[in-house]
């Protein structure tokens, strides 16, 4: 089969999966358009994450296993931008928190300056340690007072700084466009974190970057879980504003009900579908724009340089390319895409639940998508995202079906049968591992290989 035909055919096959999911309940399919659109929306977001990872891995050969952290930073940005500021939070401690953080940052800068400016010796060591210790206690003193002030404000409902929404606590849901503003902010936050990691770990052996990113993602999650003043930690922020209308409002609009009627749908179903479709439309716009940009960059001189570096670092260096700098650049870019996708995901969920960020789901699954789809090929990683996300959701019905086949001959109520059926849910990780290993071994270039 020629490659020019292969891409549309594969995309068609995946589209067929989504259509079957919506239209028929045969075999493992749900037969509900609602379910199909739910999967589609997350698949669109996953596709953006996969594009980001493909940028890093496919273009430059950088191995980032901290995707979860960058995604979570995007989610944090959504809260910080789209929620209203908690009344009184800034006066009762917000200023203290910011001041404390500044003191902390100043301490680190001072320590670095002492380390670089002073002559090496015992004096320098003592001065550095002294600055760090004094600075740390000063920082904790100011910062802790601020945190206590903020967290004391109505802890059951707020107890955090809140965001930038101009509507205030009563009317913030009318300013749904703020969530859209949060998307690029999420990208910038993630890019900042990526810069710090990249600056330290790039240029060292390749697996150090992997370990460093694994670490930063765990820490980002730990910070979001524990710093209640920022986004309420594990108490979760719920009821984020939406860039699309609410179902209830649609059901009350006579115009909408009439139009739903003319399509032969009842108002409730029509409203859920309409909301999901508007999200899909928003996400599709972002995804298509990103694919176009990614394709342009891949074929530009910059893209050629990146692939040249990936394929032979030494040769590229000899040609005068600054390998570490280019790596840092693309690492930051790719992570920014993950942050953007993270902000979009939190918008879709309408809430930030730090407890749900699991590395296997957010880091390693995205990797499976990229490798299965075809690393180095933007369309490939998008296809991989759609296919793998669909399978990830459907592994459970497939697992149940498989288990019912396996246990067909066993008598009802036997311990083994119950155990097998109960464990069907754990098939997910197992099957994803098998898929990854099989693709890596027998078709390392993926479904749509790089040209």
């Amino acid at each position, binding site marked *: 089969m020629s490659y020019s035909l292969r891409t549309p055919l594969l995309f068609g096959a995946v589209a067929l999966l989504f259509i079957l999911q919506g239209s028929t309940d045969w075999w493992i399919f749900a037969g509900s358009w609602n379910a199909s659109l739910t999967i589609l929306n997350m698949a669109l977001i996953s596709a953006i994450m996969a594009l980001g990872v493909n940028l890093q891995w496919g273009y430059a*050969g950088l*191995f980032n*296993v901290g995707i979860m952290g960058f995604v979570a930073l995007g989610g944090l940005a959504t809260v910080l931008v789209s929620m209203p500021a908690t009344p009184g939070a800034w006066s009762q401690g917000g200023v203290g928190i910011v001041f404390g953080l500044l003191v902390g940052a100043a301490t680190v800068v001072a320590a670095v300056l002492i380390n670089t400016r002073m002559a090496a010796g015992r004096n320098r060591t003592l001065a550095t340690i002294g600055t760090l210790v004094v600075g*740390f206690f000063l920082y904790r003193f100011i910062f802790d007072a601020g945190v206590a002030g903020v967290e004391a404000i109505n802890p059951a409902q707020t107890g955090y700084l809140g965001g930038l929404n101009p509507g205030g606590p009563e009317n913030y849901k009318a300013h749904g466009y703020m969530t859209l503003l949060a998307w690029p902010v999420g990208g910038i936050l993630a890019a900042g974190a990526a810069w710090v990691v990249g600056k*330290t*770990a790039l240029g*060292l*052996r*390749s*697996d*150090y970057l*992997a*370990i*460093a990113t*694994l*670490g*930063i993602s*765990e*820490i980002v999650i*730990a910070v979001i*879980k*524990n710093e209640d003043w920022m986004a309420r930690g594990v108490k979760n922020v719920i009821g984020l504003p939406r860039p699309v209308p609410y179902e209830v409002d649609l059901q009350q609009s006579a115009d909408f009900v009439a139009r739903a009627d003319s399509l032969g749908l009842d108002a409730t179903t029509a409203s859920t579908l309409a909301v999901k479709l508007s999200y899909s439309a928003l996400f599709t716009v972002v995804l298509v724009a990103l694919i176009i940009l990614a394709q342009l960059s891949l074929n530009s001189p910059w893209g050629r340089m990146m692939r040249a570096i990936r394929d032979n670092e030494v040769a590229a260096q000899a040609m005068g390319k600054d390998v570490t700098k280019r790596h840092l650049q693309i690492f930051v870019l790719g992570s920014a895409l993950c942050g953007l996708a993270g902000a979009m995901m939190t918008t879709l969920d309408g809430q930030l639940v730090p407890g749900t960020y699991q*590395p*296997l789901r957010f880091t*390693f699954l995205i*990797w499976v998508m990229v*490798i299965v789809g075809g690393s180095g090929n933007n369309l490939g990683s998008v296809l991989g995202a759609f296919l793998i996300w669909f399978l990830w959701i459907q592994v459970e019905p497939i697992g149940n079906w498989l288990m019912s086949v396996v246990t067909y001959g066993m008598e009802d109520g036997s311990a083994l049968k119950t155990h097998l059926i109960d*464990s069907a849910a*754990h*098939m*997910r*990780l*197992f*099957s*994803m*591992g*098998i898929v*990854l*290993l099989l693709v*890596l*071994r027998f078709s*390392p270039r993926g479904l749509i290989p790089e040209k």
Partner: protein
Amino acid sequence: MDFLNALVALSNFVLIPAIAYGSQLALGALGVTLIYGILRFSNFAHGDTMAFGAMVTILFTWWFQSMGLSIHPLPTALLALPFGIVVTAMLLILTDRTVYRFYRRVKAKPIVFVMASMGVMFIMNGVVRFIIGPGDQRFADGERFIIKARDFKNATGLSEGLAFKTSQGITIVTAIIVVAVLFWFLNRTRTGKSMRAFSDNEDLALLSGINPERVVMITWIIVAALITIAGTLYGLDKTFKPFTYFQLLLPIFASAIVGGLGNPLGAIAGGFVIAFSEVTITYAWKKVAVYLLPESLEPTGLVQLMSTDYKFAVSFVILIVVLLFKPTGLFKGQSV
């Protein structure tokens, strides 16, 4: 008296837990370092393989317990340990045959090995959850304490108690034995020497007639032993939950890198560096400070540098500092 009380509080809450945790990390980091030295990649499946080894041991423990087999006052898990090691070794050799050997043969880049190990991690994770479930499992039995806090108070008349758990004692003793045996093996036996030769210079080792497949197989067997012991000890000391083993990956990597990847001595030192930093930074020092400082200077807060939830951040920061200032680690491991 106050000084003794402070010392006891320090040992009870900092020294003993940190030594036990450090031994567990050291055993885990030894595995990572051996794999890195011989097979030349960072094994991401390490944490989940640890969970697998511990799980097999737990299953054997339950079986022995149901048969009434016991080595009271020691936990039955020690009896089950050899069986756990054998099963884990078989599994690791099987993964090597089915997954890694192919990439060795085509001389794939190290990063491809790392990715393959990620796939293995998924599968191990799934297998463990499939067999034993994602929840907490209890399998510790036997005497719980070597020294009970109240007995210690009665015997010494101090107001601070010192508790020394059996699991901590076993951890420390086992770690010492395992490390001694491992170093004897690496430095004194022919096979151990060939392993070190292979790690130092692969081409030269091949020229001198060392069979690489045999070296690799022995490495996996040793790793299986280390990992199963570390996993079981951690489970005895704290609790067995598959996800916590995945999270151990970061401190274990940090230990191996801090000590110098590929250097067994470094892995042990790194394990203790990480464990002691984690415990001292997240410990609330008030209890010790109360005894040492005069009343007027007594702290009002907990004197805790960081909340315990940030213990991963500690290993990460140490890792970053080492990467920045001494990428080869404290003991000159391999680095490029």
